[in-house]
């Protein structure tokens, strides 16, 4: 417990400090946030930061993201099933209906048991290749050319991009493409394909798989690269590199010296009187000056005066900024 806290004489903290101590140390040992910024080198002379060392946690699937992906896949499967029904079910209505049902139900099962799926995929991410193969076998069984479920097997690429590395994703694409191409060639001769005009459709599906992989991997790659370079980007912005809108550049230039600690700090919170602090805290509670005045049986101009003085002392420009300051670590508490 730092001595300055006790020096300020806040009531009720002595009794709690011993209960807090062990828990705090335990929590700091497995600190869940901001671990990736620790121990990284500074950019020197404009070179961007080195990419962070690949750690295992980066590739771990979160259950929530898996749930979202599976929900999307379920929607796609269900939508395509409905489309197949509208289509009049083709030559083998029962088979077609059953394949759609199996797809929808298996995705729903995975969604329901996503905890188990998540733990399995965490240890063996390559299993998504089997998922891709399973979905593509449904497409082949449905008659590859006329299948309504090509879009469903595309969802396995999204799943692969979430749970596995890029190589596994491309492996999935290869499995999907080869299975589809073999099924098409077995179904029809090339000449027939060209004559019936289905070549465009087949090529579209064959190109669609790598294209989906490209989009998904591009999005994920852009995100991870951006997140790991955020420090460097902000440093560059502070050093004067322009933002997209000029007003934003101006705002950064205004705030950069203060953010970098190059400006002298304003007089601070300790100069606030108790009444001023209470008014600001009431403001941060979402109460209006008029309400505060009514509750405390003082006049509205008095409350306004308190707020004005607090703004001047802390250097806040707006009431919202003043309200935000009540949450800072240096803000003295007025209530027990």
């Amino acid at each position, binding site marked *: 417990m730092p001595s300055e806290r006790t*020096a300020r004489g806040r009531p*009720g*903290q002595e009794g*709690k400090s011993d209960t*807090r101590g062990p828990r*705090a140390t335990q929590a700091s040992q497995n600190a*869940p946030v*901001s671990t990736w*910024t620790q121990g990284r080198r*500074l950019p020197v002379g*404009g070179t961007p930061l080195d990419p962070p060392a690949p750690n295992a946690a980066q590739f771990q699937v979160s259950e929530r993201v898996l749930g979202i992906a599976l929900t999307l896949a379920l*929607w796609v499967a269900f*939508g395509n099933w409905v489309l197949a029904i*509208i*289509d009049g079910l083709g030559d083998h209505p029962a088979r077609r209906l059953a394949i759609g049902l199996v797809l929808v139900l298996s995705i729903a099962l995975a969604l329901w048991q996503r905890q188990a799926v998540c733990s399995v995929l965490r240890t063996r991410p390559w299993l998504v290749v089997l998922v891709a193969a399973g979905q593509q076998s449904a497409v082949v069984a449905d008659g590859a050319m006329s299948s309504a479920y090509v879009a469903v097997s595309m969802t396995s690429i999204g799943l692969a991009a979430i749970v596995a590395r890029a190589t596994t994703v491309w492996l999935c694409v290869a499995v999907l493409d080869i299975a589809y191409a073999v099924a098409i060639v077995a179904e029809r001769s090339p000449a027939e394909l*060209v004559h019936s*005009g*289905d070549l*465009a459709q087949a*090529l*579209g599906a064959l190109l669609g798989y790598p294209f989906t992989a490209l989009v998904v991997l*591009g*999005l994920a790659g*852009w995100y991870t690269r951006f*997140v790991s370079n*955020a*420090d460097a980007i902000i*440093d560059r912005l502070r050093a*004067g590199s322009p933002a*997209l809108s000029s007003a*934003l*550049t101006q*705002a*950064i230039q*205004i705030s*950069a010296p203060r*953010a*970098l*600690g190059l400006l002298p700090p304003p007089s*601070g*919170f300790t100069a606030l009187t108790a009444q001023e602090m209470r008014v600001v*805290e009431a403001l*941060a*509670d*979402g109460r209006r000056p008029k309400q505060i005045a009514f509750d405390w049986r003082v006049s509205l101009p008095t409350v306004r005066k308190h707020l004005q003085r607090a703004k001047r002392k802390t*250097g806040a420009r*707006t*009431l919202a*900024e003043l*309200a*935000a*300051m*009540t*949450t*800072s*670590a*240096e803000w003295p*508490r007025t*209530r*027990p």
Partner: protein
Amino acid sequence: MAAHEAVTNDAQRVGDAMVQAAAVANAVRIRRGAELVALAERFNYGIFMGALAFVGLSTLTALAFLPLRASAENGRPPPTAVSAAVVVLALTALAAWRAQDVYRLLRNRPGLAIVPVLVAAALLSVVSPLRNELWWPACAILMVIALQCSLRRALVYSLIVLLANLAAHTIDGDLSETSPVGIVGLWIGIPFWTAMAAVIPDRMTSHILRLNARREPPRPLAHRVAVGAPHPPTDAAQEDEPADDLAAGATPERASGPTTVISAERESTLTGRLTTRQLEVVVLLADGHRYEFIGACLSISAGQVYRHVRNAVERLDLQNVNQLVAVAVAEGVVPPPARSRVEPVS
């Protein structure tokens, strides 16, 4: 020679500034609101460029596939479709050339988005809805627009395109000939992909905003007096509080009694419920900027800023702006104002 020296001097100065900025930034891990917004904007801009590339690629593919389909019908590819694809390709190349201007224009004047939407509608209407090679280019244009606007607006745009398509084919009279699958597929597919483009990048951007705001340990609003039933802080909530590990030394004890400490469960829903735009507005508000200036930063009007604030307050079920900013800072959604980092005089 002199010019060369000037350039090296400039480079030297920029390099020195960078080193200094980096050194200080490491000491002061605080992020200001404007920097976060600029960061989010960069990310968005990258996605925008990617979406433009998507439009170009899908149009190219369509152009390549048009003769394939036509050869089956023993004819030439329909000239309207080919010329439409070429026009879209040219427009996309133009937009990619002046990408920053187009991006700013779409942000400055959201109403202008109707122009690309009409282009998409024309693309879908010139060819038959079933087996339409221009399906993906039209959808991709809608997705580019959806990146810049809200989900509701994006869905309205896709509805405009679909209705235009339906109207064109009703006038043509070929609606009865086309299979319902093509139409239903269109009516499911286009809103689906538009919604994806409106939601997923937005979620990613707001995650980046929150991720970087969280560098500073958030501190709960312990002085908040419960308005309704008091929720005493539970042990579980305190365990999950990210403030605990980092701010344990710096944060004074959490007050007991009738105070609301926002629990971990509430926090997760609370922070996840704001859109990127709302987060950006709150971030700039916590910086101490006025509505007019925030509007200038985000390329929107002050009235639109007010609307974002009002929506955010309503979403989080709070009283007003001041409480919104205080709660957002307390939960680490938004970095605290840098001014507050004053050494306490004991």
